[in-house]
């Protein structure tokens, strides 16, 4: 690379690098041990639900998707060979399920979609926060968060999932590449485009 700079190359992750406890947990789940399945859910449910929430933007949808994700995990866990960390493998399932659900949702409810601005015009603004302690500050934060989520929702799903996995979940390029099933170079370009689009929309923040 020019001037001696290079990006870290992707490396293979083997069973030996996966924690032995995690490997044992996976094997017990594959054998149909209910306690192990419960343990796996407890360890990863918050992570799965948060990623689903960030990708879908709805609590109940995210909860429903989380359940589907774990069922999918247990149906296919016998195929998990430690080609990545268990967490990354689950991330991959979350992203795929979320993508499928959004496609389905768009097909089914495309005609019924209403923009947020139109909803506010028809039904009034969102209710102000009920915390009297710091109303201005809290309200400002909520407004900012709402703007950010609106900007995120405006991104294509591929860019949105890449930026969420990087900035919010803190995954490395290799992990994002595995989770999305794409090359590291594609991860970089999607991140660059997502950041450019977000900065253009949130310039005054």
């Amino acid at each position, binding site marked *: 690379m020019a*001037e001696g700079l290079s990006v870290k190359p992707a490396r293979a992750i083997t069973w030996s690098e996966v924690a032995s406890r995690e490997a044992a947990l996976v094997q017990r789940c594959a054998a149909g041990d209910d306690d192990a399945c419960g343990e796996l859910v407890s360890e990863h449910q918050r992570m799965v639900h948060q990623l689903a929430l960030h990708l879908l933007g709805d609590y109940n949808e995210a*909860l429903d998707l989380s*359940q589907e994700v774990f069922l999918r995990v247990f149906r296919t866990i016998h195929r998990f060979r430690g080609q990545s960390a268990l967490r990354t493998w689950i991330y991959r399932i979350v992203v795929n399920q979320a993508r499928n659900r959004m496609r389905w949702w768009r097909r089914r409810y495309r005609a019924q979609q209403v923009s947020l601005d139109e909803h506010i015009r028809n039904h009034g603004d969102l209710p102000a926060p009920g915390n009297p302690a710091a109303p201005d500050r809290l309200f400002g934060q909520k407004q*900012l968060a709402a703007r950010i989520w609106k900007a995120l929702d405006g991104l294509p799903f591929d860019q949105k999932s890449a930026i969420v996995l990087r900035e919010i979940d803190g995954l490395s390029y290799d992990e994002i590449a595995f989770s999305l099933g794409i090359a590291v170079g594609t991860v970089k370009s999607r991140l660059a485009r997502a950041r450019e689009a977000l900065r253009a929309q949130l310039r005054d923040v």
Partner: protein
Amino acid sequence: MTPLSCASVRRRLTAYHDRELSIEQLIAIEAHLDGCPPCATEAAGLETLGESLRLAAATLQPGTDMLAGLQPGIISRMKAENAQSWRAQFGRMFEDMHLVWIGLGSAMATIICSALALACLHFASPERDDSLAGIIATMVSSRANLVRQVPADTYDDVVGNALVRSMSEEEAVLALAAVVTRDGRLIDPRWVENDRDRQQILDLMSAIETSRFDTTRAGGASVNMVWLFAHTTVRGKIVG
């Protein structure tokens, strides 16, 4: 260490922000940012964007009670799916033998019914002589099968005898033996073993002799084969 240009730093700013560079590269870029306010502003913009996203994510933190029902729900749904799976249902079929006996009884009933039906067919009344099956059977079993090769010198006897033998009393009017030429003419028609209405038969034979069959053509060439219909009743009418 070689100082980096602004263009070079900008190209790697996202990788720097994501900490996806080696230590040497990180140090080189940090050194450049210390002395380059425009690049530092660009890097700060990326940092602000990341913090904003994390801040927005923090506002969506679900309550602990929201996830409380997730684990038992998943486990119970897994159990329900396993209980309704094809493998489980197949296994349950053999928990007791009632379905097996039903299956075996059905199979036996089918076999018995089939055997009875075949026996009925076997012992049914034999076919009539004047039915199509009977005629075909007669032709096959007799020497009247005109499809086979017949020596020319025995032609008259073979055809004549076979036709007369295969005809019933009511339907037989006459039996003819003739030769069909290549151009479709009947030559040398002869009446075989029938002495009724001799003059009418001779007149009919004369009419047949002057008639002409259409020759078969295949691919533009004349075919030297004429299909002869045997055991066919011709009811002729002689005018005058």
